[in-house]
């Protein structure tokens, strides 16, 4: 009986496992194998030659290859950290606002918030590149009305990456607000009623009921926000091309440049493996942190 059950489970799982194996595991293993090879993406795999850790030495070395990779890694880290730090609190604030059914305009706010997530990135990129225009951009014109001088936005290495982060926050916050609302609906109303009877004010209710019970939702949101941010590509490819001075050159864009444009498949794979490892470390650390808090 158990044997028959196992066989039937195996048959049922086989299509999904095969698909995952072919389309996820094989490319991952191939990338790991390629990161130890010197290989041009325009040649067959048979022409790859083993170089050991040579590609890693190169991407962490002092030549332009190493400098560009380290800059891209740092840019991706800053972009991810800023995105998560801005998106999560904003999504909770907006979620709380939208969740209050008696607040006027709540439905309109919910619609507006989520609509940004539905706009295709190509349209977002086109509009925001014009909004950020240093000379004729509406953002600078609005700042001018309140006496603030024109900002360079995408034209300065100091502000270009932050400008791309703001664009990302604008587009993604609606989606994460929906996740926050979903988390809020899971909190029993009786807890708030009891807290109110005990004399807890709104801030205390947030601190001792809402925030602790939203922790799992926020963990999920953080993981998704990190993965989304690490994979950023379109705004960089469409607006800045990684510039100025490589200040918006993020890893996905850089890997595409190295691996496809320059056909340096081995180097590109080493960079992709480093990206994958960084992501795994980051997400694992986040889970460990939240689990430790839970056990405390």
């Amino acid at each position, binding site marked *: 009986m158990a044997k028959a059950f196992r066989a039937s489970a195996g048959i049922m799982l086989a299509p999904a496992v095969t698909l995952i194996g072919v389309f996820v595991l094989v490319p991952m293993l191939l990338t790991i194998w390629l990161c130890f090879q010197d290989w041009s993406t325009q*040649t067959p795999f048979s022409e790859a030659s083993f170089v050991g850790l040579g590609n890693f030495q190169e991407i962490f070395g002092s030549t332009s290859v190493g400098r560009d990779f380290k800059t891209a890694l740092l840019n991706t880290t800053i972009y991810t950290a800023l995105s998560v730090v801005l998106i999560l609190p904003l999504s909770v604030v907006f979620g709380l606002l939208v969740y209050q059914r008696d607040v006027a305009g709540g439905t309109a706010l919910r619609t507006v918030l989520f609509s940004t997530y539905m706009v295709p990135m190509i349209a977002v990129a086109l509009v925001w*590149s014009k909004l950020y*225009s240093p000379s004729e951009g509406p953002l600078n014109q609005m700042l001018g009305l309140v006496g603030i001088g024109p900002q360079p936005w995408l034209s300065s290495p100091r502000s270009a990456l932050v400008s791309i982060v703001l664009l990302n926050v604008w587009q993604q916050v609606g989606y994460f607000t929906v996740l926050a609302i979903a988390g809020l609906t899971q909190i029993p109303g009786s807890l708030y009623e009891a807290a109110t009877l005990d004399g807890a004010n709104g801030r205390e209710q947030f601190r001792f009921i809402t925030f602790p019970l939203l922790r799992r939702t926020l963990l999920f949101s953080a993981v998704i926000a990190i993965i989304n941010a690490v994979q950023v590509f379109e705004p960089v490819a469409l607006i800045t091309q990684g*510039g*100025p*001075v490589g200040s918006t050159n993020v890893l996905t864009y850089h890997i595409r440049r190295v691996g496809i*444009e320059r056909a340096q498949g081995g180097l590109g794979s080493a960079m992709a493996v480093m990206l994958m490892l960084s992501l795994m470390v980051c997400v694992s650390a986040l889970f460990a942190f939240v689990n430790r808090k839970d056990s405390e």
Partner: protein
Amino acid sequence: MSLAWISKLALAAGLIGLPATGCAQSVNISYLTHWSPETVALLEAAAKDFSKQNPDVAVTVRAVPFGDLLTTLRSQGGSSDGPTIGGIYDLWLPELAKDKLVAPAPDAVASEVKSAWPAGVVSAASVGGTLYGIPNEIDVYALNYNKELFKAAGIAAPPKTWAEFKDVAAKLTNKDKGQQGFGMINSWAAGVVHPFASLLVSNGGNLVKDGKPALDSPQAGETFALYEDLIKSGASVPAMATADANTTGPFLDNFVSGKTGMIIMANWWESALKTGMGDKFANVATAPIPVGPSGDKPHSISYSWMTVVNAKAGEAEQKAAWQFLGWLNSPKSGKNGASAMSDILMSMGILPSRSSDIEAHKDKLGSEFLSGYVSVLADARPFPVVLGGQEFSESLQQTLEALQYGQVSAKDAQANAQADATSILERAAK
């Protein structure tokens, strides 16, 4: 008639029709370019004319932004379903040929090209003596300046030397009006490197000499120092220099709107200037690159584009592609003895490279804007076409941008640029 007889007759008719269908089978070829929609429409019209004469060949045109062109060629060119024809920048050819992505030109095409194009252009479309593409355009850099701004600043003539250049740039700079004397470009490799290289060759230097980087020369040192001076004096503002993936953006907007007095750019941006400036385009004039302290006379950088055929495409597709390209670039396809390709190029202000096309478009090439470019062509130096050239170009771009934004000194920029170029070219040559 019974159903059985009807079936037999239908089968017989079908069998008779089969060979005829096979004979009339059309060949579909595709052409990948980075041109704007208006120019793509001209190419599509030419393709339609070709298909009228060759009903068995259908040509479709696909356009991607310039920033995606090489990636698209590399990612799709390795398959028989990828674009059959691609317009490429000569710098990319050595690596595309090394990776066997582009097909050598058939003998008939090669001999036609060798007899009808200038030798320098033919050499830029060849690797190891084998011709890979049909050259079509040649681009050269010169100094563009705004005559109205010159007049307002009391400047009578464009600068001829670097000393005059710095002086004029300072006079044209007006921070209160948000006006810069000389416009640099950033966030676009060719836009950063080509103007710098034009100033370098006008100072008697070279980017690459005998296959090795020559950025450690005193002439290169003076060129890096010139950039540093222009930035430090405020005559050039890097925040006004950004370009986007379509090679437009603030650097163009600032010149078009009269916020930039001078800029070093190639002839092909004539159409962008006309679109952006309208009647004010008449204010734009062209002059040779100012000569540096170590230079003998004005020089600038030139480069060429060509059309290549996908080596992985089927035999019939490759044959049709060469046939189409041969027609498109021949004097029979355009107006008044010009090729259809040159008519398309001239619509954008791009100089055609075929000798007969230059003759056929003599009048238009004599316009105030383009004649300035034509006049510097004879002394222009081709941008070095070497293995690893694109990576070298992107690396130099990063160094120059760091210099523009004051992140490195001219001296450090020179040392970094030479070290990076040496490592890149050595690795690519392996």
